[in-house]
């Protein structure tokens, strides 16, 4: 517990001072905020028809931004935190002082989750998804996706010897998970291929908010997202047991 507390405090201070990381947490909701501002009838300078179009597609666009955050924002952030501590040998000093690698990963994961809660509520606040029930559905889906992303980011972080290596590893995952759902909207094949991935299901939940015909029932999307969490959790556990952290730190 003491060790978890030490890591949590370190990571919170560190992340808050890391512009790159804070940008990742703030950028996507900020883009959502800009879009909803343009769509607002009070905003001059954007033609009314476009505003109406924007407003109609707002839940979808907001969900798209949230999906991008989960895929493109969060995964590289978690991987880069861990790989930086490996590369700079900070982790080695922590484990030599008696911190179990798992406490370290829990601390890093907890801070990332904590910051992602703010991002999630920023989306919830800006997004105007409907009533309380809709907001709860959104928050539940997002935070589940956040957990999946943290598992994946941590796995890729463990596998990276340096921060640069982690960028190389997370880029493909971020592109598939972050951009895939957007491409899926225009292409049936991609949509089918993306179905098993949690970001695609996050995105699919937008239909529930926009009142459009849902591609899949809500429970099914949640089931797939949670299956992702479980699978990525297992992958993380396997990689962690095989690779460890201490020796490489």
């Amino acid at each position, binding site marked *: 517990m003491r060790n978890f507390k*030490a890591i949590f405090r370190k990571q919170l201070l*560190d992340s808050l001072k890391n512009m790159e990381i804070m940008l990742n947490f703030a950028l996507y909701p900020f883009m959502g905020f800009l879009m909803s501002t343009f769509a607002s009838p009070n905003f001059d300078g954007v033609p009314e028809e476009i505003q109406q179009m924007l407003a109609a597609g707002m839940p979808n666009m907001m969900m798209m931004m949230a999906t991008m955050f989960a895929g493109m924002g969060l995964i590289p952030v978690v991987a880069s935190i861990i790989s930086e501590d490996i590369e700079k040998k900070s982790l080695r000093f*922590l484990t030599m002082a008696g911190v179990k690698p798992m406490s370290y990963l829990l601390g890093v994961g907890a801070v990332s989750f904590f910051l992602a809660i703010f991002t999630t509520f920023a989306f919830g606040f800006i997004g105007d998804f409907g009533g309380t029930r809709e907001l709860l559905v959104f928050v539940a889906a997002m935070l589940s996706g956040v957990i999946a992303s943290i598992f994946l980011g941590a796995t890729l972080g463990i596998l990276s010897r340096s921060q640069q290596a982690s960028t190389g590893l997370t880029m493909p995952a971020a592109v598939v998970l972050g951009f895939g759902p957007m491409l899926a909207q225009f292409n049936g094949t991609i949509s089918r291929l993306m179905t098993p991935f949690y970001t695609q299901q996050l995105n699919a939940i937008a239909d529930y908010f926009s009142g459009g015909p849902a591609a899949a029932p809500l429970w099914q999307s949640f089931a797939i997202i949670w299956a992702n969490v479980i699978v990525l959790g297992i992958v993380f556990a396997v990689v962690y047991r095989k690779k460890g952290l201490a*020796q490489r730190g």
Partner: protein
Amino acid sequence: MATISMKNVHKAFGDNQVLNGVTFHVNPGEIFGMLGPSGSGKTTIINILTRQLSADSGEASTAAESHEIGLMLEHDGLFNRLSCLDNLIVFETIYGIPRARTLEALEKVGLSDAHKTEVNKLSKGMRQRLVLARAVLHHPKVLFLDEPTSALDPLTARGIYQLIRQLRDDGSTIFLTTHNMEEATHLCDRVVMLHGGQIIEEGAPQDICNKYDAHKTLPDLESVFVQLTGGGLE
């Protein structure tokens, strides 16, 4: 009973046989210096003694749990975006020691005034002093210092020597590596010389210099070293 000992330790990285039967011991409460040219395996020995690396054969032991060890390694491992104090608080929390001890450690290395400064903004010497503060925060039984004064100006280095002696007087055992023969002569109670994967000489600096009659106006450990190792790069 030795605090640190190695008996006939071998270690290779692929075809590179770095340690080829290394034997030495460190007595409790002494400042012990490991001298050797670059690439001779000094850091490898520290890694083995701190259980971060295992030897291929032979025995290596350090009579301390890992939380009783203080470390200063090639890579400083500092959290760059955190202040000096926040860096130490991480370890203060892990060791469960009072804040007063943390402040005392900062004071000892002369970083009290800079406690709020971000590590990014420290000079090299200040970084090194912060690393030393972190290494001694928990009053370790054994302290491993890998080239503690490399890239420090003589004055800062002298301050660090003073601190190392004080730690020894308080009962810590100190193992350090260095290229700096003058440093070894003045700081270490005993030294060994590592060359070709083996210990080629050991003893008190003064005794070694006497043995090789290596005195100028000052005892000149450096010339012994050059004589024994050929002085070239490995």
